[in-house]
C-alpha cells in the first residue's frame, strides 16, 4: 500500500506495509515512542519502563499481520498492548505511587515555610494524590492514566480497554471524585 506522493502515510498504511517489509515498522515506532514511553514510565517509573516499552513495540511488531484497521486505529491498539503489559507489573506500579507519597512528605516537613500555606502547589499535594491514585481500582486507574498521561479521547480509551464509551465516562467521573476527595480541602478551586 503506497500513500500519495505528498502525503505522509497513515498509521494503518505503515503497519500494513510493515507486514511485507518489517523494516517499515520502525516508522510506527518513531511516531509513537514518545507517547508510549511517557505513559509507561509515568506508571512504572523510568527503570521498568524501558523493558515494557520495548516489549510493547515488539508485541505489536509480532502481531502486526493480525491488526485490523477497520476495528480501530493504531494508537489505541498500541496503548492497549502497553496497558496489558503494565498490568503484569502491578507491584512495581504500586511501589512507585508509594514512593511518590513518601517523597512529598519529606520535601515539606511540617510546612514551616509561610509561603507554603499561601501557594499550595501541585507538588505539595503529591503525597495525597499518589496515595489516592494507588487506592483506585485497577480498572479506574487505567482510565484515569490513559486520560492524564496518554491524553486519549473517551472513544480511544473505550477502544483500548474494550469497554463501552459510556463506561469510560462513568469510571472517569467516579475516579476523579475519589481523587478530589483525597486532596486537602484548601485545594478547592485550584
Amino acid at each position, binding site marked *: 500500500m503506497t500513500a500519495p506522493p505528498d502525503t505522509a502515510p497513515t498509521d494503518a498504511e505503515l503497519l*500494513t506495509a510493515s*507486514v*511485507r*517489509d*518489517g*523494516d517499515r*515498522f*520502525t516508522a510506527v*515506532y518513531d511516531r509513537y*515512542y514518545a507517547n508510549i*514511553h*511517557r505513559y509507561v*514510565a*509515568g*506508571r512504572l*517509573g*523510568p527503570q521498568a*519502563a*524501558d*523493558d515494557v*516499552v*520495548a516489549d510493547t*513495540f*515488539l*508485541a*505489536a*511488531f*509480532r*502481531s502486526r*499481520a*493480525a*491488526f*485490523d484497521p*477497520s*476495528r480501530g486505529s493504531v494508537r489505541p*491498539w498500541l496503548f492497549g*498492548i502497553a496497558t*496489558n503489559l503494565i*498490568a503484569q507489573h502491578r507491584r512495581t506500579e504500586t511501589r512507585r505511587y508509594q514512593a*511518590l507519597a513518601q517523597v512529598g512528605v519529606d520535601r515539606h516537613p511540617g510546612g514551616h515555610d509561610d509561603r507554603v500555606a499561601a501557594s499550595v502547589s*501541585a*507538588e505539595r*499535594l*503529591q503525597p495525597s*494524590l*499518589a496515595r489516592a*491514585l494507588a487506592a483506585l481500582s485497577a480498572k479506574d486507574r487505567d482510565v*484515569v*492514566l490513559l*486520560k*492524564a*498521561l496518554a491524553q486519549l479521547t473517551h472513544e480511544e480509551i473505550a477502544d*483500548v*480497554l*474494550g469497554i463501552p464509551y459510556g463506561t469510560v465516562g462513568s469510571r472517569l467521573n467516579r475516579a*476523579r471524585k475519589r*481523587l*478530589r476527595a483525597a*486532596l486537602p480541602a484548601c485545594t478547592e478551586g*485550584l
Partner: protein
Amino acid sequence: MDELQMIATMLDEPPTPETETAVRHRLLKGMREPERPARRAWRRPALWSGFGLTATAAAVTATVVLSSGTTPRAPDPGRGPAATQPMSATTVLLTAAGHAEAAPATGKYWHVLRVQSRAFHNERGGYWMLGRQLIGQWSRPDGRSWTGYRGLGAVPMTAKDAPAFRRDGSPDPAPISPRFTKDTGTKTFLVCDREMTFKQVQALPADPGELRGALKRAIPRNHPTAGRTADEVVKNCVTDLLSFVPAPPKVRAGAYRMLATMPGVTAMGEVTDERGRKGFGLHVQVRRGVADTVIIDPDSSFVLSTSRTAPDVPGKVEKVLYLRAGWTDSDPRIPTLP
C-alpha cells in the same frame, strides 16, 4: 490545575536520548531475531515473522501417525461407515466429543510432536517460502517440561516460487541448530496464552457454557491477537485446548461441544491432508480476515493440523501439523521426523 493535570505533572518522566537509544536497540534486535522457538513449551502458535520477511503457511509432506498414548495407531485406521456419510460440523464435533471422553490418560509425560511452518516473504527476490521446525515437547504434571527442536529447512511456498527460491540459494529464513531446553516452572501449560499449572488445566470446566467463560477469562485482556468479542476470543484459542494441552477427556469433549454451537464454525467435510491423513475439516472464522482451518480426526478426537489465514498475507500465515499428541513413557530428546 485539575487533578488529571496534577497527576500528569507528578508522574512525568521525560524520555532521555539514552533511553530512546536503548529501547530502539532492543526493538531492532527483537525484530531481527530469526525464527526462534518460543521459550515456553506450550505457547499458542502466534502470528509472527522474521525481519524483513513475512510469515505465511506451509505444506509438509511425510506420512505421520497420530497416537494417543504410547502405542502408535496405524496411519489410516479406516473410518467407520459414518465417515463416508456427509456430516455436519455439529455431528462431527459431537462424535469427536464422545471419543475424547473415552481417550486414555496415562503415561509419564504429556507429549506433543509437531511440525510448525511459517511462510516468509523475501522482498528482494519477490518469492514466498516456508520455514519449518520439528518441535517435540514433553511435560510432567508438576510442570517441568522439556522441548527439543530440529530445523527442517525451508521449501518454496508454491511451484511458482520455486525458481526464485532456488536462484537465491534455497535460504532458510530462520535457521536453528538442533537444541534441547528444559523449563522448570510450574505454569508451563498455555491455555489462551495464560500460563497454567497442570492442576489448573485439570480444573477447567467440562460444561460447554462454563468452559467458554473460563477461556474468556483466561486470555489476557486486550491480547493483541485475541479478537474483540467473547466469541472471537474463544474461537481464537479453543483449538489450543484440543491440540496441545493435556486437558482431561471430559474437558476436551466440552470444548468440542462448545465449538459445535458457535457461529462461524462450518464443516468442510472429509479432507485429506498433505500427508495423506484423512480427517474432517472445520473452517473457523476467528474474526474478520482471520480464519483457521482445523483438521480433526473424529475417531481419536485429536487435531491433525491447524492453519491460519490473516489479512495482507497471501496463503497461510502459519500452519501446525500434529504428529503425536498424548501421554507417553518415552523420555524427552531432540526429535526426529518419524
